[in-house]
């Protein structure tokens, strides 16, 4: 398991190469990448991500540990940025490796659902019209029911 919470951008290709280099006997690797998206209304200039430094890494470790306990996985990687990001930049990534594809998919999906609603990050969007916090979606909270 590797967890990185960082302000700096990360190199997706290099991270995946490093992740795969540590694997043996895994038939399936799933990655998820979250990208700062400009919304339909347009005008997003910057996304500011706040987090809870003392808690973030351990909260993610707990989520990743649960994934490792629930599925037959070879390894898990989570990288999540904070600070100021511009549209098109990568916010975060998850990678899972497993002998079989169903485990790799389920674990990545699970990690994303929990990171979305249980890791202490808050997103603020700065547009031409001002700044506002991104509201948590009921659908994201409801998605957690899939895993209980």
């Amino acid at each position, binding site marked *: 398991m590797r967890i990185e919470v960082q302000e700096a951008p990360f190199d997706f290709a290099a991270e995946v190469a490093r992740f795969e280099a540590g694997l043996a006997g895994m038939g399936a690797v799933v990655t998820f990448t979250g990208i700062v998206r400009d919304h339909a209304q347009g005008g997003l200039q910057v996304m500011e991500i706040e987090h*809870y430094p003392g808690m973030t890494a351990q909260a993610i470790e707990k989520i990743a540990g649960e994934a490792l306990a629930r599925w037959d996985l070879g390894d898990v990687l989570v990288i999540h940025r904070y600070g100021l990001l511009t549209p098109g930049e990568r916010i975060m990534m998850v990678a899972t490796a497993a002998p079989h594809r169903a485990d790799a998919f389920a674990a990545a999906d699970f990690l994303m659902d929990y990171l*979305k*609603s249980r*890791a202490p990050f808050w997103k603020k969007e700065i547009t031409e019209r001002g700044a506002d916090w991104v509201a*948590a979606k009921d659908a994201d909270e409801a998605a957690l029911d899939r895993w209980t």
Partner: protein
Amino acid sequence: MDVLYFARVRERIGLPRERVETDAATVTDLVEELRAREECYAAAFADLSALRVAVDQELTDFDAPLAGAREVAFFPPMTGG
């Protein structure tokens, strides 16, 4: 104990953390004390269903006891990922 505020809660209260001397038995008791302080606290804690709490950096609920707690954090629902 240290009380931390994040995101909109931090903005409403106007500071990211403060030292609070309290005998509050639970998170709810602490919230009542904070609400009684000033208008900005009352506003920040007006709707607890829109807030989340962590005690010593573990997510918990408002019924949680505070005995021995060193750090309590209040924040809106998280928007990671």
